[in-house]
């Protein structure tokens, strides 16, 4: 279940963000605040963004910020920052309003999590519903499959 990877308080909605980098930093910080990763994981993700560009903007309007498994990761986790006003990342999928982040301590512990995530996001209407949702409670319902079965 996807819900087991999102700690309480790790879905945040807000009006806007000053930059894509700031939004990524904020989203990954939710993983740190919920005990999924240590603070330097934020730096690792930002470094990856700097070196490789916004390759983790993987669908129209959606980013999945992450870095390689490292000692900075405590356990597999996900978080989401939803912006009401989307931000430009430099990707073909701009502008971005759903900034997911994820972490995993190794190459295996998160495969169920991503399997559930990928299946959900490929389900018809889920992506549009998430892009259009503004309330934290509605987003949680969509992600945790209380709306689409």
């Amino acid at each position, binding site marked *: 279940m996807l819900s087991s990877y999102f700690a309480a308080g790790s879905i945040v909605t807000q009006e806007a963000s000053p930059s894509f980098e700031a939004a990524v930093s904020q989203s990954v910080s939710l993983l740190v605040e919920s005990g999924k990763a240590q603070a330097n994981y934020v730096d690792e993700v930002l470094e*990856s963004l700097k*070196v*490789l*560009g*916004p*390759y*983790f*903007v*993987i*669908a*129209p309007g959606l980013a*999945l910020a*992450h*870095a*390689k*498994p490292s000692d900075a990761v405590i356990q597999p986790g996900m978080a989401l920052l939803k912006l009401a006003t989307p931000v430009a990342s430099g*990707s*073909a*999928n701009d502008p971005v309003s759903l900034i997911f982040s*994820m972490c*995993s301590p190794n*190459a295996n512990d*998160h*495969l169920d999590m*991503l*399997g559930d*995530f*990928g*299946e959900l*996001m*490929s389900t018809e209407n889920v*992506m549009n519903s998430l892009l259009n949702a503004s309330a934290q409670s509605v987003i949680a319902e969509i992600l945790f499959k209380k709306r689409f079965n």
Partner: protein
Amino acid sequence: MLIYAVCGAGIGTSVLLKSNAERALSMLGIEAEVKAVSIEEARGTNKMAQVVLATPEILDQLEGIPAEVIAINNIFDLGELGEKLKATLS
């Protein structure tokens, strides 16, 4: 046939790309092994895949590798994945 799904870290985007490519391939009735790998693994391997799937931003990192490289914009769109795989494989 071997297909690589590539991302910067080899654990996130590539894993999602792999699972959706597998679903698209099975809908097309094409048998292939899809492996999620990092950019370094895709560049450094001896057992080269015939086809490489990646998001557009990392294409220049994959320049020169001896495989057909396909850029996928929306990795959750099984339609896009299926069409591009079909066009390349047939």
